[in-house]
C-alpha cells in the first residue's frame, strides 16, 4: 500500500486501487510485467462478479427462455427478462418492451438499418451522419442509402485552425468540434434519420446531442444515437434526450462479449417488420406464412445469448454500485491529469485538445520525432507493449476521421474505472522514452533502460 500517494491522487467516491482488485485480468501472474491497460474504448476487462454470475447461471439456472414450463425454464426466463428491465432503467428508456437484445452495438445499428431504413427510405430521402463516426455507424447507412436510392449527408468537423505540428503533414492539433452551424442546412424536410455517435471513440469528445436531436425533431426525422462509448462514461437518460433509437454493447461496459442492445420507442418497434426471422419471434406459423410476436420479442429470433444477458445485468449492477456520478468524477480526474501529463511529453500532438465539447479520459495522439517526422503509431505501440502498456494504435475503425486528421493512424489511450493517475504517469514516461528512441538517442530499446517509476503496483 502507498497510502500517502493514494490519498493525494484519489478523489472521494471511487478508489481505483480498490476497484482494480475486482478485475482478475489486471492482476498478472508472478513473473509477468504489470499490465497498464489503457484500451477501454476497445473493450474492458471484466469484474469477477460478472464472470461468476455467468458461471453460476450455467451451473444452476440455465435453460432456454420463453419455452419450457418446468421451473428451470421459468427461472432462466425470469433472469433474462429482469435484465431487460434493468437495461431500460439504466438508460432511462420509457418501457422495457423497447429493449431488444442484440449481439453487439453493430448489430443493433444494423437492425435499424435493415428493419427500418431499407424498408422506409426512398430516393430523395436523406440520412445524416457525422464525420467522426465509427465505421459501425457509417457503413450500415452508406449501404442502406445505396440500396434505397436515399442520400447520405455528413455533419462535418469545424475547419481546423489549431497549431500545426508539422506544416502540411499532420496539421491538426486544434479544434475538432462538430460544426453545429451546418445543422440548419443539413437537416431539413428530406431528412428521415440522423445517426450520430454519442461520444467519439477516437477523440473522446461527447457529442452535443441536444441541438442535434432538436434539429431532427424540428423536421420530423428520427434520431439514432450510437452509445457504445457513451454508456457508463456519462449517465444516459433517453426520455430526456429524446432519441428514437439508442445502441450499445455490453463488452465495453464491463459486461461480456456477445451481447448488446437496441433501445427504442416501443411504438416505433411495433411499426417495424422483423430483422431476422425464425423461432422465438412468431405468434403463429402456417405452411404459407407467419405472424409476429409482440415487441421486443419479434426482434429476437432464435435462442438468444442468455448467459451473456445475465452477465450484462451483473455488470450494470456493478456499475450502479460504483455509482455513475462517481465514475464520471473519476473519469474527469483521469482526463485532467492525463491531458496535462500528455502535454508535457515532447513532440506529442494531441488531437481534439482544444475542443469546446466536454471530453472524457480517452486520449488520441501522435508522436513526432526530433526531425519533425511522424513516429508511426505501430512503432509507438510496440515500444509501449514492451513496457506492459496496452494502448490502441491504428485507425480505430474511423478512417474518414483519420483522413481528416491527415494521418494514416493514431495512438489512443482510453481509461476506465480501474485506471489510476500513476498509470497515466507511466504512459507519459514511456512515450517520452519512445520518442527519444526513435529520434536516435541510444541504440538500445527503452526496455533495457530502467523504468523511472513503476506505477503498476500489484493488486
Amino acid at each position, binding site marked *: 500500500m502507498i497510502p500517502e500517494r493514494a490519498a493525494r491522487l484519489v478523489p472521494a467516491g471511487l478508489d481505483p486501487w480498490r476497484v482494480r482488485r475486482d478485475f482478475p485480468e489486471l492482476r498478472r501472474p508472478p513473473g509477468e510485467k504489470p499490465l497498464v491497460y489503457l484500451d477501454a474504448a476497445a473493450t474492458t476487462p471484466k469484474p469477477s462478479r460478472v464472470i461468476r454470475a455467468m458461471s453460476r447461471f450455467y451451473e444452476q439456472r440455465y435453460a432456454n427462455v420463453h419455452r419450457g414450463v418446468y421451473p428451470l425454464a421459468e427461472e432462466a426466463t425470469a433472469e433474462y427478462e429482469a435484465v431487460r428491465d434493468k437495461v431500460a432503467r439504466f438508460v432511462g428508456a420509457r418501457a422495457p418492451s423497447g429493449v431488444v437484445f442484440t449481439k453487439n452495438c453493430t448489430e443493433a445499428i444494423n437492425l435499424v438499418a435493415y428493419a427500418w431504413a431499407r424498408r422506409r427510405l426512398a430516393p430523395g430521402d436523406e440520412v445524416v451522419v457525422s464525420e467522426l463516426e465509427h465505421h459501425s455507424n457509417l457503413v450500415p447507412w452508406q449501404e442502406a442509402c445505396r440500396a434505397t436510392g436515399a442520400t447520405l449527408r455528413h455533419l462535418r468537423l469545424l475547419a481546423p485552425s489549431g497549431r500545426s505540428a508539422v506544416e502540411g503533414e499532420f496539421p491538426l492539433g486544434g479544434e475538432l468540434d462538430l460544426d453545429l452551424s451546418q445543422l440548419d442546412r443539413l437537416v431539413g424536410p428530406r431528412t428521415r434519420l440522423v445517426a450520430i455517435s454519442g461520444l467519439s471513440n477516437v477523440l473522446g469528445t461527447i457529442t452535443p446531442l441536444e441541438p442535434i436531436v432538436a434539429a431532427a425533431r424540428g423536421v420530423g426525422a428520427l434520431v439514432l444515437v450510437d452509445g457504445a462509448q457513451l454508456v457508463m462514461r456519462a449517465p444516459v437518460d433517453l426520455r430526456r434526450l429524446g432519441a428514437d433509437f439508442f445502441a450499445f454493447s455490453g463488452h465495453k461496459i464491463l459486461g461480456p462479449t456477445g451481447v448488446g442492445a437496441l433501445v427504442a420507442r416501443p411504438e416505433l418497434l411495433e411499426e417495424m417488420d422483423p430483422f431476422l426471422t425464425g423461432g422465438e419471434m412468431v405468434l403463429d406459423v402456417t405452411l404459407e406464412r407467419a405472424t409476429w410476436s409482440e415487441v421486443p420479442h419479434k426482434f429476437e429470433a432464435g435462442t438468444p445469448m442468455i448467459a451473456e444477458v445475465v452477465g450484462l445485468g451483473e455488470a450494470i449492477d456493478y456499475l450502479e454500485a460504483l455509482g455513475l456520478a462517481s465514475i464520471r468524477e473519476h473519469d474527469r480526474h483521469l482526463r485532467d491529469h492525463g491531458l496535462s501529463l500528455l502535454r508535457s511529453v515532447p513532440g506529442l500532438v494531441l488531437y481534439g485538445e482544444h475542443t469546446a465539447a466536454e471530453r472524457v479520459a480517452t486520449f488520441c495522439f501522435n508522436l513526432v520525432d526530433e526531425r519533425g517526422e511522424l513516429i*508511426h503509431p*505501430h512503432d509507438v505501440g510496440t*515500444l509501449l507493449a514492451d513496457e506492459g502498456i496496452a494502448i490502441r494504435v*491504428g485507425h480505430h475503425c474511423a478512417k474518414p476521421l*483519420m483522413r481528416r486528421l491527415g494521418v494514416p493512424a493514431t495512438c489512443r489511450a482510453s481509461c476506465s474505472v480501474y485506471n489510476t493517475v500513476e498509470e497515466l504517469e507511466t504512459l507519459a514516461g514511456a512515450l517520452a522514452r519512445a520518442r527519444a528512441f526513435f529520434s536516435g538517442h541510444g541504440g538500445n*530499446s527503452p*526496455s533495457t533502460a530502467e523504468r523511472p517509476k513503476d506505477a503498476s503496483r500489484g493488486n
Partner: protein
Amino acid sequence: MALDDLYQEIILDHYRSPRNRGACEECDHSVHHDNPLCGDELDLALQLERGRIHRIAFSGRGCSISQASASMMTERVKGETLEQALSIAEVVRRMMHGEPPAVDLGDLMALEGVSRFPVRVKCALLPWMALRDALSRGTSRHEDRNTEEPR
C-alpha cells in the same frame, strides 16, 4: 520476445537514413501498395535494363519496419536479375514465417527478428509484395492494389 530483436541497429539506421527513397523519373514499372490494417503506404518504382533492375526507388509512409525493409530491399536487389530478385523476395517471405534462410541475406538478416512479432510481419513484407507485383506486372503504371500475402 526481446524488443532489440525487432529494432536492430541496422533497421533503425535504414529507417532514419533510408536509401533509394524518392521519385524515379526514368522508372517504367511502378506500383502502389498499402496495408489497410495499419495504413502503411508504399510506392515502388523500378526500371529494368537487359533483364536487370537498373533503377529502383520507393516512397510512402509507414512504420519503421516497413520503411527500413523497403530501404534494405532496394539496396539488395539493385543490379540483380528479375529471377534473382524474385528469389530473394521468396527467401525473405519464408524467413518472416520462421524459415531460416539458406543463403546469406546480408543486412536483410536484421529482419529475422520481425518474425517473432506476428502483427508486424505484414509491415516487413509490404515492400517485398510490391516488388513481386512490380516485377510480375511489366509496365503497368500507378495501379492501386492492396497487399495481400498469398497463402
